[in-house]
């Protein structure tokens, strides 16, 4: 599903990733962890083509990202869902519209959009807040909207960057439960986090990012 081979990424003079390799299977649920500045977010950005790899091979399913043309990037991104660290919610659109936006980009019909958005909002327990604007929601609720938006198109891969970073433990548990449910439906899930509580005892693979590369891999 995900394959990184000898990936290199440099920002000006700072080397972020070097000789970084990892493989993840379809339907797997895994974590990437490491100290702050280790390159977790950069690795995810490479996976959703927000950044371009300098050297090495990187692929997701059939898509070879290091060879992907710029105009093809949007079509690739429609296959993945991303839970951004800074949420990236649109505050001039309601919860419903924020989630529906993904499907509008997929050019779906109004009826299908209505059904799918209602269904996913029900799953994240926010259906009653469909018409509310994101700024009036709590941090946990905003995070659930972001997850709903990432999942509504039923992507093959879900990437989450510090999804529980700003949440209390109750909300963090709710979010993790949602990710597990998503994974049981067949979506591959990769979560970048520095929170040990999320992966210890999870029974999932954990990739340790250190010294610009994956230097350790354990089962949490």
């Amino acid at each position, binding site marked *: 599903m995900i394959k990184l081979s000898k990936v290199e990424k440099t920002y000006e003079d700072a080397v972020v990733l070097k000789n970084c390799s990892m493989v993840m299977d379809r339907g797997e649920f895994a974590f990437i962890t490491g100290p702050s500045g280790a390159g977790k977010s950069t690795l995810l950005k490479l996976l*959703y083509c*927000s950044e371009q790899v300098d050297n090495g091979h990187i692929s997701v399913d059939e898509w070879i990202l290091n060879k992907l043309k710029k*105009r093809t990037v*949007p*079509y*690739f*991104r*429609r296959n993945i869902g*991303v839970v*951004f660290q800074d949420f*990236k919610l*649109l505050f*001039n659109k309601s919860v419903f519209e924020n989630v529906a*936006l*993904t499907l*509008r*980009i*997929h*050019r*779906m*019909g*109004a009826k299908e*959009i209505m059904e799918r958005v209602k269904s996913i909002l029900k799953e994240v327990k926010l259906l009653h807040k469909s018409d509310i604007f994101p700024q009036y929601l709590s941090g946990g609720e905003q995070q659930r909207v972001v997850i709903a*938006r990432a999942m509504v198109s039923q992507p093959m891969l879900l990437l989450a960057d510090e999804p529980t970073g700003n949440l209390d433990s109750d909300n963090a548990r709710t979010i993790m439960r949602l990710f597990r449910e998503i994974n049981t439906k067949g979506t591959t899930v990769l979560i970048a986090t520095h929170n040990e509580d999320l992966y210890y005892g999870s029974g999932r693979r954990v990739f340790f990012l250190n010294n610009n590369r994956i230097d350790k891999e354990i089962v949490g």
Partner: protein
Amino acid sequence: MNTLRYYFGTAFKSIWMEKWINLLTILSICIGLSILCSFLLITFNIDSFMKRWTGNFGLVVYLDDNITYEETLNLETQFNKDRDILRVDYTSNVEAMDEIRISLGENAVIMDDFKENPLPSIFELQLVGELLNQKAARQKAESIKNISGVSDVQYGEKWLASLNTISDTMKMVAVFFATAIFISTIFTTYNTIKIFFYRRKEEIITLKLLGATNGFARLPFLIEGLFVGMVGGTLSSALVFTFSSLTSTRIVEFMPSLSVVLSPLPVQVYLIIPVIGASMSLLGSLIAVGKIRY
């Protein structure tokens, strides 16, 4: 269909949210196009006045003294067949002498001193509108001058040259005005759309990260630009139409004789102004959204 509704919905929502900037843009476009429209109206009236004036312009063809009656008839037939000539009037030397005598009245006796009629017979030829310029009139005169039986051809060359100069200058000024106003319309919309684009940069980045193509992110801005330009153009058309109708009514009330001269702009011009506004505005928007990288 649903996507199209999204594009228009997003565009009109933004128009409403940014109503003051949009209103200022519409007013700028409206003022620019109104100036252009007013200038067109003035040019059109001057042009139609000049056409009316030059309608009587013609060539005077002087015939040889010894030309025969048959040759004169042949010439008349030839002129009548010529598609460049609208009207042919023949005045024989005898008729010309009679006219002079009538105009001289009691002093006509001075004409008795001439043993022979010194006046030539003439043809007065009225040319078609397309030939009412210096170059074409000169060419026509030269070609007629070469016909057998014709001794000379005269026309108001300097007068025609002056009229042509006025007309050419007006056209040049009109082109200059139109270009300046087109550029200012493009630039106004370019700036407005660029401001909107920067204000909504975060939204565009999010859209792109969710898999939106450039077209998906840009189209609402283009619709917005198109709409703003069209409204500006429509307002300008309405303004100039109302102004010209009211003004011409007032002028005719004051000087009824001018009603023959005053010409309103053709209705097509009023219809095309919103299209020009929309096109220029769309071009400005295209440049604005095309230049920004995200």
